[in-house]
């Protein structure tokens, strides 16, 4: 426990000891005289000069003075402050909050074409003129973007020209604003100066925000309207893509619009081609008298529909990009009239399986089929299995699974014979082959262990390969014992007793899994789901999808992963946003438009390109929305800072009371006490 002083200034009160000393020094000395009788002295008092008639109340007066002195001391300890309302009213501080969200880019379509933001800036300039020049006060301006900031901080009349210049250079964002954070910053100013007034410029109705806040609503339903694309979802259903669109009108809109749709890079297996543009008619009729100035229309775009210009005979199996756009609308907010849809090119996973004929098992093939179904939505899994070494591939696939055997040509070439464009999975490799390639890999074959009983496997260090796999339920009856060199990069994933039986290496140029036991000698066939999870994990671990979504709102961060060695992110102008080598990672998306994510491999594979579109937030399309910040800034409570410390005066009062008490105490006493 530490002793702390809340108000060290209070020790000034010790100066009172000095006052006390002075009182004692100045204390008059009374000579004690024993008289035969004081009778006449008492009688003589009535002939004395008229004095303050305090004698009857002397004791009460002394008590009152002492009580007041103690009360004054208590008040001093309580740090009294005199809050002057008059003083507060003299202050003229203004805090301006300008909403810089994308909806503030809305234009007055039927008149000047000024945006809400421009009008907010203009009105702020007038306010600056009023407060700084005419009233001689101070002003602060908070630009409420994604992260609100003071662009003008407590400026006075001397900074007038600078403030005007800053306001003219202020820009509206394409994203959402954090008005609550901005109001918190404004509230902080009001807490320091309870008389400060806050003016908020926004097009979003924010409700009552307290008597300190003047809200200026810049929306104008007579001069603003907007049609925007809320969402376009390319859904892969029954081996084809179906496009679901959600478009909406905001404001008093009654018109027929045409939605322009271009689907590019369609590849149904016969080569990529672009579909002729589609024009989808959309009718809006927002009830002008209704309270809700919003109308949503949901569409399904069918490229085979001739009525909208569809000429496609077959379904869309994949696509590069889809452009969805309202053209020639001339609405208030054109930023939401265009949307690009990506994600129509699914990852291809080609699995090559080579197994000696004697050990071929049906279980493996069924497992792969389950794998295909599992990744149907995100990946195209192609599986090839052969028992003929002549057809066993060592290039051109993504995953090479060699079960019980390693092709002789690989064994003869040692480590360099392994495929260099994908993941090599050695399932129970034969002893002779491992003696050949093992030293090069860093895996030294030791011995074959035949267990007398069925033995359960155990976890190695936490590894993604064992996600969802019930390792404790798995068991084997025989395995090969390998010893991994420390610098081999092999990580033991599963153990049987103290011996590792599943190794994994994830180098950019060498991705290898070695399973040192035979599926036939395990209970995987009775637990196919665990085998499926193991394969899924293998694909997710070595070949993660780059993006989990292909459309973002501005200001969001894209979570990216990489199956290669690095990921290059560029914006729509081709400028590099970031080059990532650590994954998973996040990429900030601060501009509207298409971002390109290029995966580069150290393996002998071509770059993989994925794209994503960054748009304005959907909510910003709603020009006349109402939000309740549930935030109040009140300056009716005139609290601190504006008050004057009256500590000193109470100290003076205490001293005066003590002196008066002392005077009364030592005043001529008649009748004793």
């Amino acid at each position, binding site marked *: 426990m530490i002793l702390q002083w809340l108000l060290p200034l209070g020790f000034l009160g010790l100066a009172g000891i000095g006052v006390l000393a002075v009182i004692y020094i100045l204390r*008059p*000395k*009374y*000579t*004690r*005289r*024993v*008289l*035969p*009788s*004081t*009778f*006449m*002295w*008492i*009688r*003589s*008092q*009535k*002939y*004395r*000069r008229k004095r303050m008639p305090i004698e009857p109340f002397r004791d009460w007066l002394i008590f009152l003075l002492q009580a007041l002195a103690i009360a004054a001391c208590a008040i001093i300890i309580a740090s009294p402050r005199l809050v002057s309302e008059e003083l507060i009213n003299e202050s003229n501080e203004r805090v301006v909050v300008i909403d810089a969200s994308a909806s503030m880019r809305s234009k007055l379509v039927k008149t000047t074409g000024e945006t809400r933001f421009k009008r907010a800036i203009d009105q702020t300039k007038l306010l600056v003129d009023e407060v700084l020049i005419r009233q001689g006060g101070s002003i602060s301006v908070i630009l409420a973007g994604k992260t609100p900031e003071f662009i003008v901080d407590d400026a006075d009349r001397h900074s007038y020209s600078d403030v005007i210049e800053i306001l003219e250079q202020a820009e509206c964002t394409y994203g959402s604003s954090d008005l609550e954070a901005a109001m918190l910053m404004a509230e902080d100013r009001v807490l320091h100066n309870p008389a400060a007034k806050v003016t908020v410029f926004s097009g979003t109705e924010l409700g009552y925000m307290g008597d300190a806040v003047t809200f200026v609503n810049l929306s104008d339903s007579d001069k603003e309207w907007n049609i925007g694309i809320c969402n376009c979802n390319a859904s892969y259903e029954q081996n084809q893509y179906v496009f679901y669109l959600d478009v909406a009108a905001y404001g008093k809109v009654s018109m027929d619009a045409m939605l322009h749709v271009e689907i590019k890079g369609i590849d149904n297996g016969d080569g990529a081609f672009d579909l002729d543009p589609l024009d989808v008619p959309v009718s809006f009729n927002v009830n002008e008298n209704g309270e809700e100035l919003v109308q949503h229309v949901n569409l399904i775009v069918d490229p085979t529909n001739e009525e909208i210009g569809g000429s496609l005979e077959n379904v869309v199996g994949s696509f590069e990009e889809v452009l969805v756009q309202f053209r020639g609308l001339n609405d208030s907010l054109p930023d939401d009239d265009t949307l690009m849809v990506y994600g129509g090119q699914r990852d291809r996973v080609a699995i090559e399986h080579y197994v000696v004929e004697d050990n071929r098992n049906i279980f493996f093939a069924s497992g792969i089929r389950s794998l295909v179904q599992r990744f149907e939505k995100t990946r195209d899994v192609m599986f090839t299995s052969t028992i003929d070494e002549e057809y066993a591939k060592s290039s051109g696939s993504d995953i090479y699974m060699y079960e019980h055997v390693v092709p002789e040509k690989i064994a003869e070439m040692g480590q360099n014979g392994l495929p260099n464009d994908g993941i090599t999975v050695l399932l129970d490799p034969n002893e002779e082959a491992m003696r050949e390639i093992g030293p090069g890999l860093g895996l030294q074959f030791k011995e074959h262990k035949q267990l007398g009983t069925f033995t359960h496997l155990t976890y190695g260090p936490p590894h993604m390969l064992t996600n969802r796999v019930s390792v404790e339920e798995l068991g084997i009856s025989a395995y090969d014992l390998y010893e991994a060199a420390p610098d081999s990069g092999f990580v033991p994933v599963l153990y049987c007793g103290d011996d590792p039986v599943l190794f994994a290496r994830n180098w950019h140029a060498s991705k290898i899994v070695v399973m040192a036991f035979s599926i036939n000698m395990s209970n995987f066939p009775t637990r196919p789901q665990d085998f499926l999870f193991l394969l899924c994990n293998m694909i997710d671990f070595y070949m993660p999808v780059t993006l989990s979504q292909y459309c973002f709102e501005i200001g969001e961060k894209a979570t990216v992963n990489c199956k290669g060695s690095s990921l290059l992110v560029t914006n729509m102008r081709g400028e590099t946003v970031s080059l990532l080598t650590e994954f998973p990672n996040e990429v900030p998306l601060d501009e509207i438009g298409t971002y390109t994510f290029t995966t580069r491999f150290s393996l002998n594979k071509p770059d993989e390109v994925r794209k994503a579109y960054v748009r304005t937030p959907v909510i910003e399309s709603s020009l006349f929305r109402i939000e309740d910040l549930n935030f109040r800034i009140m300056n009716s409570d005139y609290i601190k800072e504006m008050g004057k410390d009256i500590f000193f005066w109470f100290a003076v009062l205490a001293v005066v009371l003590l002196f008066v008490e002392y005077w009364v105490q*030592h005043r*001529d*006493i*008649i*009748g*004793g*006490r």
Partner: protein
Amino acid sequence: MKNFLNDEFFDRLEVLSLNFKSSLMGLFGGTHKINSYGQTVEFADFRDYVLGDDVRKIDWNLFARFGKYFIKLFTDERRMHIRIFLDCSRSMGAVKEKAEYAISVAAAFGYLAVRNMDKVSFYLINEDKCENPFGYLVGKNAFFSVIENLAKVKFEGDAKISDAILSTSALGGNDGISVIISDFFTDNDWQKAVNYLTFKAHQVLLVQTLLPDEIHPSFTGRSELIDSETEQFVDGRHLRLRIGRQMISAYTQAMDEYLEEIKTFSRKLGIDFLTVSTGVPIEDMLFKRLLDIGLFRRLT
């Protein structure tokens, strides 16, 4: 006490005598002539004979001259009782001079009484009691036998003159002088006692004995005044004063008014009052002031 109560002091008193009011009746056996007629040999007057008078007192010479019976009257002589009430409170004894002075005055009255064959009693007032430790003294021998003890009287506590005198028995009536020696600095209603004594037809003399400082304080400055009768700091009689010229003036004014109050009271009752300062020689009081007011008379 030896300053006053000595032979020289008493010798000087030989020329003085108490002068009693003629209305006093006194007691049998004294030397003081009174207004009534008695059995002495000194002729006083005649009056007509009435039936029942002693025929032996008829003046036959006048019968022979006027043919009427006249009775011959003679003067009467009585013994007076001098009661001396001495305030024995601490205020009287706090200062030695004041006590000595008071005792000397008492002794003087006592001596003059016994010298004229009167009876004297010393009543010592202490608190609300009035003691008579020496009894009734008649004759010089009796007086001198107690004078030493009188000098050793202790002055203690308070003196409630009124309560003490009113509680005293055997105060007689119309038989002599009652002398109250005190400073009369008391809240006790001593006037009630004086009223009682006058009711008893005593000739009353009030002797107020004061120190010079009590008549006119000589000290100034900030003072804590403590009454000697309590000597308690917490007491109603305690004062803390800054004594200056204005305060002295107030005191003098208060003193004058108090004396005037006593004098007025005395005049109303027809009693004598005398204020004496211990600073003034006692001879001045005995041989001048008491003579002036007629209580003493000089023997020729």
